[in-house]
Every structure is written in structure tokens, then in C-alpha cells.
């Protein structure tokens, strides 16, 4: 945990609501989840990130009690994910990827139906308003747009007032406007004290919403950290690109301690490196009497971290080919 998170939650002692210990799930011959361990604290938005086929959905399905693990232990809200399924379903709301409702079911009917399953449901009308669906109350599911279906799906996951909400590929297929609105909504849910597990492959979404992230790759956790720490931890890679006013001594620039590489595209130079890269490059240019024009500086983002970490993991796997290797971070 980073200091920022600790200060934010200083008043309440950290309570673990989900703990996954060496989870393993296979479908026939395929090992969907190899070895996943993580713990999620009450009130945080926990992101599960990874390339396609990394085991993200399987992991959250196991947490939600929808998949029987082949190995490992899962505890959710202090309950066993399989033995206490009924109690768990009362207290965990799950939004699944690509699950539709009957075509002719109306929005209002769907919410009232789902509300009837829970001990202490939220008010369907309030939820409809919150999700901007109040005008769609009488519309049939088949006539809803992709964004409206997605918002209805979120509403159904929240109708039972869950303590934990699992949202899988929440904003896939949404336009940027509705995506931002959905993000606001999720933050609102978190502020009401609901713990959220968010499966996503959108870096921007993870960066904006998540308090912490687990990066999954080939069914294993390769990193768990805050988005900022994870981005910075990707070797702090930076890039400076510019069009020089005069001749650049490429060889000498390559010698600079923080510079890893210099690439030239036409009259544009891109320097890659770490540390105080920008200062070092500028100083070197000034010494040669060259003025950098149209300078662009790119910090490493979560995107870079994602690519770097998954590539590293691939490299390690192919070098050692050791299936018992523990996670590296």
C-alpha cells in the first residue's frame, strides 16, 4: 500500500473483504488460472487488468462463486465462495460480460424483478434515475442501445445493495461520453462504501478509477500496485522528441548516462531513456548551439507498464520455462 492510500483510509482499519490464495482453475486441458493470489480491502476499487486470455474473467467468476476452483482458497466477506453461495449472492452484485435479458422484458420490470430477490434492495426508481434510465422505464430490453443495456446491467448488479460489486468489462462498447459518466457512477458507488472489483483492459479506466491494480498474464499475477506506482515502476521510461535547428551529434548523445536510444525519423529525433532525461538532452543540445523545436515529452504511462511487464513475464517464462515460478513483484 502506498502512503496516499493509507492516509485516505487512516480512520478505518484496513479490512480485507476478498482474499484469494493460490487460485487455480482449468477448463478441460486449458489452465485458465494458474496461480492467482490477491487481497482486496473494503471500500477500494480494485482493478484486474491483463491481455485477453489472461484469466481475468475466470478469476472474478471464481470470486463470485460461479466457478469451482481446482485449487486454492477464496474467502469473500468472510464467507467461503462455494459453501456459503446463497449468503454470498445476497451480498455480492455481479455484472457479467455479455449477458442479456429477455427481449420483451421492460427496464422497470427487470429492476423490480431483480429487486424482489434481495432482502433489502435499493429503490428501483432511484437507481434508474442515478443511471439516467428513468425515461427508458417502459422500454423493452431489445430496444435499448448498447450503452443503455450496459447501464441497466450495472443497475441490476447494484439493486441488491451489495457490499461487493464485481464489474466485468464495464465500459466496453460505450462511447467516450457514457464511459466517463459510468466512471463517475462507479466512484459514487465507492464513496457509498461499496468495494468494487473492476475487470478491464482500458488503461485509462484503470488509471482513473482504481485504487490498486493486479496485472494478470497467462493466469498469474505479475504485478499488484497502485496505478501510479505501476506506471512509474515500468523502469520510469521517458521519451523526448524534437526537430533540431542544426546538426545533432547523435553519437555523443547516445553516450549520455540516462539515454538508452536515439532514433531519427526524417528531421525528427526521438530520445528514449530514464531519470533526468529531458534535462540531459536539453543541456547537450544547448552545448552544441542547437535549439530543439516542436519538443514533445512522453512520460511512461500505465500502457507502457502493461506492455513492459507482460513482455518481461513472457521473456522470463521462455528463458526459464519454470512453471512453479512465483510472481515477481
Amino acid at each position, binding site marked *: 500500500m502506498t502512503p496516499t492510500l493509507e492516509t485516505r483510509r487512516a480512520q478505518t482499519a484496513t479490512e480485507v473483504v476478498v482474499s484469494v490464495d493460490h487460485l487455480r482453475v482449468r477448463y478441460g486441458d486449458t489452465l485458465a488460472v494458474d496461480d492467482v493470489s490477491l487481497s482486496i480491502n473494503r471500500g477500494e476499487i480494485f482493478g484486474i487488468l491483463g491481455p485477453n486470455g489472461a484469466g481475468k474473467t475466470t478469476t472474478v467468476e471464481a470470486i463470485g462463486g460461479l466457478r469451482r476452483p481446482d485449487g486454492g482458497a477464496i474467502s469473500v466477506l468472510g464467507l467461503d465462495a462455494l459453501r456459503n453461495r446463497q449468503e454470498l449472492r445476497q451480498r455480492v452484485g455481479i455484472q457479467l460480460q455479455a449477458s442479456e*435479458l429477455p427481449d420483451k422484458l421492460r427496464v422497470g420490470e427487470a429492476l423490480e*424483478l431483480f429487486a424482489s430477490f434481495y432482502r433489502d434492495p435499493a429503490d428501483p426508481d432511484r437507481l434508474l434515475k442515478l443511471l439516467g434510465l428513468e425515461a427508458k422505464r417502459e422500454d423493452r430490453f431489445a430496444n435499448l442501445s448498447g450503452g443503455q443495456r450496459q447501464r441497466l446491467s450495472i443497475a441490476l448488479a447494484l439493486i441488491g445493495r451489495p457490499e461487493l460489486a464485481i464489474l466485468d468489462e464495464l465500459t466496453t462498447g460505450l462511447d467516450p461520453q457514457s464511459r466517463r459518466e459510468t466512471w463517475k457512477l462507479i466512484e459514487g458507488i465507492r464513496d457509498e462504501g461499496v468495494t468494487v472489483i473492476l475487470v478491464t483492459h482500458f488503461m485509462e479506466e484503470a488509471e482513473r478509477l482504481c485504487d490498486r491494480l493486479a496485472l494478470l498474464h497467462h493466469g498469474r499475477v505479475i504485478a499488484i500496485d497502485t496505478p501510479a506506482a505501476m506506471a512509474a515502476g515500468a523502469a520510469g521510461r521517458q521519451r523526448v522528441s524534437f526537430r533540431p535547428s542544426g546538426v545533432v551529434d547523435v553519437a555523443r548523445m547516445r553516450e549520455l548516462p540516462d539515454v538508452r536510444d536515439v532514433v531519427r525519423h526524417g528531421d525528427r529525433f526521438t530520445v528514449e531513456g530514464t531519470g533526468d532525461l529531458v534535462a540531459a538532452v536539453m543541456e547537450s543540445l544547448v552545448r552544441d548551439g542547437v535549439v530543439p523545436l516542436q519538443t514533445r515529452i512522453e512520460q511512461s504511462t500505465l500502457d507502457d507498464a502493461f506492455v513492459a511487464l507482460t513482455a518481461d513475464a513472457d521473456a522470463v517464462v521462455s528463458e526459464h520455462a519454470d512453471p512453479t515460478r512465483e510472481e515477481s513483484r
Partner: protein
Amino acid sequence: MTAVAAPSVSTRARPRGFRRLLITELKLFAREPMLLFWGLVFPVGLLVVLGVAGGDKAQKSLGGVKLIVAYTPVVMMFVVTILALSALPAALASYRDKGYLRRLSTTPIGAARLLAAQVILNFGLAAAAVILVALVSHLAFSVALPQQLGGFVLAIALTLAAMLSLGTLVAAVAPTQRIAAAIGSLLFFPLMFFAGLWVPQASMGTTLRDISHYTPLGAAVPAVQNAIAGHWPGTVHLLVLAAYAVVLCAAAGRLFRWER
């Protein structure tokens, strides 16, 4: 059908919301105009046409009864078959294909309750339709109401158990909703043939009639006919129906899949 093994049945007390689920399924059913036509309007219309066209005379080729008397049980079986082989598998297969069953399995109600709701709903609708057919026949064409009521109820209940199990089995083995519909209509013709929709059983040759008595609807028609006439349905017919109910229900329970 309650014996169906489900991944999501709770062992606790009655779950919340089952009544609401049942009502919602009924509403959805009422929004299917094709089902309402084939399950209600068409059979009643057919009954009226047969009653008017057949006239008042008993016919030798029908075993000495009026046309409407011979056809009343057949029309009952027609309605049962439309519900069991069209309505039920279409709903179950589409709910599976859409991921609605899976969606419900994340809630306290569980997916198995939706299957139960569908079976109960179609059972109720079929029973209501059978009563409607009996009443129309009686009021419009003075066909006797079932004189052996206990035997009638038992025969109809066994028929429904067998046919709804068959419908669930169709939904279970069909990989998609389309294929479920295709299998359903493919089964419709031989089942209704043996029930006597095109050639009444009384007009069939002996061999054909013997064969038909070992098919679900072919056994149901004489059982119901006997009960209407005031006799206890034949034991063999009832046993045939019960055997189908048990075997088909077990197969449906074993094969039903909750996910695509």
C-alpha cells in the same frame, strides 16, 4: 421436474422473488402473439370447425362417435404440444443463449428457479387450455364433460409431465434456440400423427394403432377419451405415459446445460 440437478438451487427456505419471477414469465408469454395464436386461437377455432362440419351423427369409421367427440382429446393434445415443444424450449434455449440463466445464477434466486418457473407456467397454461377445450366442446357441441374426473386429471397430469420433460430435453440438447425450434417442430408432426390429428386412431389399422399407443400422445388420447366417456383410463396407457415422464425427465435433468 424438480429433480433436475442444478448448480444454483438453494437448500434454504423458499427464496424471495419466485412469485415475481412467475408473474414476469407470464407477462413475457403474453407478449408472444404467435404462441397465443397457435396455443389458443387456432385450437379453439379448429374445435369449432370440426364441431360444425362434423354434424350430429355418430360415425362408424370413428368407432361409433361424433367427429367432435373423437377430436376433443386430439385438440387438447395439440395445445399441450404447442406449449411443451414450442413455448417451453424456445424460452429455455433463448434464456441460455442470451446468458440470462447465468445472469440469474449470480443472484439469490438462481437459474434453476427460472427453469422451474417456466415448467410451472407452461403446466398451468396447458391445464387451463385443456379445461377451455373441454368447456368449449361441452357448451357448443354438448360433448360430455369428463365423467371419470380422477382418471382424467391423472391422465392429463402424466401427459403434461411427459411432454414438458420432452420440451426441456429439446432445450437441453439443442445447441441454439433456432435448433431447439427446429427439433420441436420436427417432433410435432409424428407425435400429433400418432395422437390422430390427421387420421383419428379409430380409423387407423390395428398395427398402426398398436404402435401409436406406445407413443406419448398416442397413449394420452385413448386415456383421456376413456375418462371423458366415464371409464378409468387403461392401465397400459397410464403406464406408458408415466414411463415417458420418468425417462424424459431424468434425461432432461442430466443433459440440461446452464451456459452456452
